[in-house]
Structure formats: C-alpha cells, structure tokens
C-alpha cells in the first residue's frame, strides 16, 4: 500500500514543497527537497516531529526586563508548551550573555535553554 504525503520543509526560509512516498507505513522516498536537510526534515516530521523553541526569560536588574532564549537544539513538538511554561517560573540575574545556559535539561528533553541576546545590568 503506497501513500504520498505533502509537506512544506521548515528547515530554512526557502520552504521547499516535499513529497514523501510511504510504502506500507515506511518512508520510501522524499522528493522536492533542495538540500539533504529537506529529506532529513521529512523523515523526522513523520516519525518524530521536533521544533526549536524560542521564548523569553525574566531578567532581574537588567537594562531590559526580559532576555530572549532558545533551546540549544530541537525538542519534541509535544513538549513545546511545557517548555515555555517552565520558563515562566524562573528569573535570571543580569548581566545575561549570548550562549548562557538559563535552564538545563528543559522538561527532561536533555536540551538546555540558552540566552540569545546580551542584556547588561541597568
């Protein structure tokens, strides 16, 4: 039994239209991708969809009240909401630097949350 699934690759802003051919539930072929990342995305999206999460963390004593953060790599799509909720529980002291780990192993994903901007002391 073969089936075709249409996806839009979100790995980069090109947004390639991917066609994934499934044979008996198994991925047989990916077409429409411009680069290997597209094929990788298609396989992941149909087996283990993951997202990089970008959000904010509150900063104490900073020039800005918040600092932007991201997951250091992608996490399971189903954990995105929990991850953002966990961030609301914490506050970090200024200064914050790009790459600072603000939360380790967020929601048991094994992935750290890192700062993505510099926020100096006020």
């Amino acid at each position, binding site marked *: 039994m073969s089936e075709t699934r249409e996806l*839009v690759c*979100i790995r*980069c802003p090109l947004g390639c239209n991917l066609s994934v051919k499934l044979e008996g539930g198994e991925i047989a072929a990916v077409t429409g991708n411009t680069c290997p990342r597209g094929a990788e995305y298609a396989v992941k999206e149909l087996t283990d969809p993951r*997202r990089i*999460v*970008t959000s904010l963390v509150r900063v104490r004593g900073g020039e800005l*009240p918040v600092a932007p953060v991201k997951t250091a790599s992608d996490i399971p799509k189903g954990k995105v909401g929990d991850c953002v909720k966990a961030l609301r529980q914490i506050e970090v002291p200024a200064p914050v630097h*790009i790459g600072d780990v603000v939360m380790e192993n967020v929601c048991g994903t094994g992935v750290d949350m890192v700062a*993505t*901007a510099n926020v100096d002391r006020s």
Partner: protein
Amino acid sequence: MKKDLVIIGGGPAGLAAAIAAREAGVEELLILERDCRLGGILNQCIHNGFGLHTFKEELTGPEYADRYIGKAKTLGIPYRLNTMVVDLRAEGQQKKLTVMNREEGLYEIEAKAVILAMGCRERTRGALNIPGFRPAGIYSAGTAQRYVNMEGRMPGREVVILGSGDIGLIMARRMTLEGARVKLVAELMPYSGGLKRNIVQCLEDFGIPLRLSHTVVDIKGRDRVEGVTIARVDGNLKPIPGTEEEISCDTLLLSCGLIPENELSQGLGAAMNPVTGGPFVNESLETDKEGVFACGNVLHVHDLVDYVSQEAEAAGRKAAAYLRGGLEGTGRVVSLRAAEGVRYTVPASLDIGRMEEAQTVRFRVGDVYRDAAIEVSCDGRILRSVKKKVLAPGEMEQIILKKQELEAADNPKEIVISVRTQGQGKEA
C-alpha cells in the same frame, strides 16, 4: 563634521555595508542610528531562522545582529546612537546631512558618499481605512513584537491578526506561546504574504485558522477593542455583503505590508520606484544621485536578512570604489524591465563595463504561479529560462546575470525578466 562615508541606519543593512566599506579601505566613516542600540529590528526578532545562508547555521535575530555588531566593533567602526538624520541633500558632489541628538542638538555632517540603510516601517491602521472607533488594543504586529519580546508586556489576551505577512505569522506563534488565544489570521489576498514555513510552524502547529480572501470591515469597542467583524472579499477585494462574521477579541494586530522608509531619499530628490517604494538603483546600488547608495529594506522589502546583508556588502564595496574614484560609468548601460508577472527588478539598470562578473538581480512576482518559468531575454533573444515549481509574491526571487553573456551580446539595450506560464499554470 566631515566624513568620507556616512551610513544612515545601524540595522543589518547599515552594519554589513559599513563592515564591507571598512574592509575595502574606507577609514573616515560613520554609522548613524536613531535607536538606543545597533542591530535594528533584529533585536526584537527573537525567533530562529536567520543566517542559514550567511553562517550556515540557524540563528535568532539578536544573535545574527550580534555577529555583525561584534565585527563592526572589532574593526573600530564609529557609530552614534539615539541620533536621527532629519535632512539629506546634495550640493554638487558633496552631501550634507542635518542630524539631531540630545547631546549635540542639531548639527551638520558633510559626506562624500552616503549609504541609505533606513529600513522600512509597517503599514498602519490609518493607511488601511478600517471603520470604527479608535479604541486601545490595535497594534501593528511589529509594535506588539517589541512590547512582548523586549519590554516583557502582553498587548492582549484574545487576538485577531489582519494580514498574513511574516511578522503577523511570527506574532501569532509568540502570542500563543505566551498564553494568549489567537483566534484567526485574516488575509485579504487569496494567498499568504508570508513564507510558507511560517504558515506551517506558526499557524498549523498551533491550529490557528488562516482565512484567505477575508478582511476586517469593522472594529467594535470604544475604549478597548471588544471585537472585530470580518467578511469575505470578492475578486476585486471588496467585502461581500452577507458574509460578515463577528469575532470577539481584545486585540487586533495588523500585519499588512511594509513600506520602505524613504523620506530622506525623497528629500534628496532621488528618483523613486513607485512599485517598491524605494529609489531606483543601478548595478552598483547607486541611486540617480551620484555617490548615494541604497541597500536593504529601504531599497525594497526583503524576506531574508541574509540577502539584506549580501546586498548591503555590495553597497559598501561600491561606495568604497566610488570614494577611490573607481566607479566611473562606461556608458554601456542596459536597462532592466519587469514584464509579465514580474513587478520590479533591483537593479533597474546596469553598466556592463562596471558590473562584476556575476550580477544578482532580485525581483518579486505579482501573483501565485505553479509550474512556471522565469524567462530572461536580452533585446528579444532568450538568455535563459529557469523552471519554478511555485512562484509567489511573498517570496523574493533572483537570477544571476553574467558579464560574459552581456559582453557577448551585440550592443545590448534592454533585458526583460518575465514569468512564462505553461498552459493553465496560473492560479487565480
């Protein structure tokens, strides 16, 4: 104050242009930035997806900006923050800028060359003519983005977004993640104005409906937004009576297009392209005012900052060449024309003697096309035809012209770029 080169704007375009100019040997240069930090709008774009072309990794906006800010600082490029250019004019070859800030008041800078890198701004409610009172709770998507991402404030709890531009889509996800309920995104056109990946990861991931061919026809509420009325539009984009639908909400975000911010360019008297809202430029990104260059969103609105940086680097290099006296025209000028399906081209003309080996031409199409081709012809002869599975107004396209192929042509006059549809390829 006298400078060789003044760069107006310290966002991604201004930074990349300044770095390229300094690396090409320009010593006396200055960046003028009106905000309190360098980096421009990237500072509030905390989502990822920046820099895949430039750095081969996926960065957030502030991280992308920081790479350039770091480099500008390492190179010792001077900049002034909280400083606004209020007037720009040309007196012969000399450019004069009237500049203002809190410390020094109003003063003049004389420059031999200027790079315009002022970016763009959002279309406002006033420009959209939506009826109703003027209650609190109506924001442009970018304003809401600044409140949420830099000031840590939520503009509202129940949100309707008008316009499916990228900032609107990104804000649909941001507001949802921060606990708001985004009820829907209404888009006037039958297609989205944003990148496909943003439809997937900002709307579909969160089950937010995208209503194409819909617009907001009324805003309810006197002090605070209490709801909006949306309606379907016909082929002429006019609301169809009887299709109205009331949606309760406390916030309306507008993501209805970006307008290059060209008051200074117009004051200078530079020839403007009514399609892009930016100045006409040649292959060196020089406006019709000698020694005044333009790059980034002030020239034409881009989707990707990577392309802004590329374009700005070219502007910086060309400004440096101009200052060395190395940008003399050769008179072998070819005009570029946007024909069927193509709305504009940047550049609008090129001097074959002065062009680099490969010249990038960027443009946008005016409609959604499937299985079409981009055709490039020179004085009626087809140079090439590039097949495209999908072409959409929301995605900027580019082709590369080679100096070699134009040198080979017999005194070329005009290059035409058009969309060639194959049979019934065009979608309404």
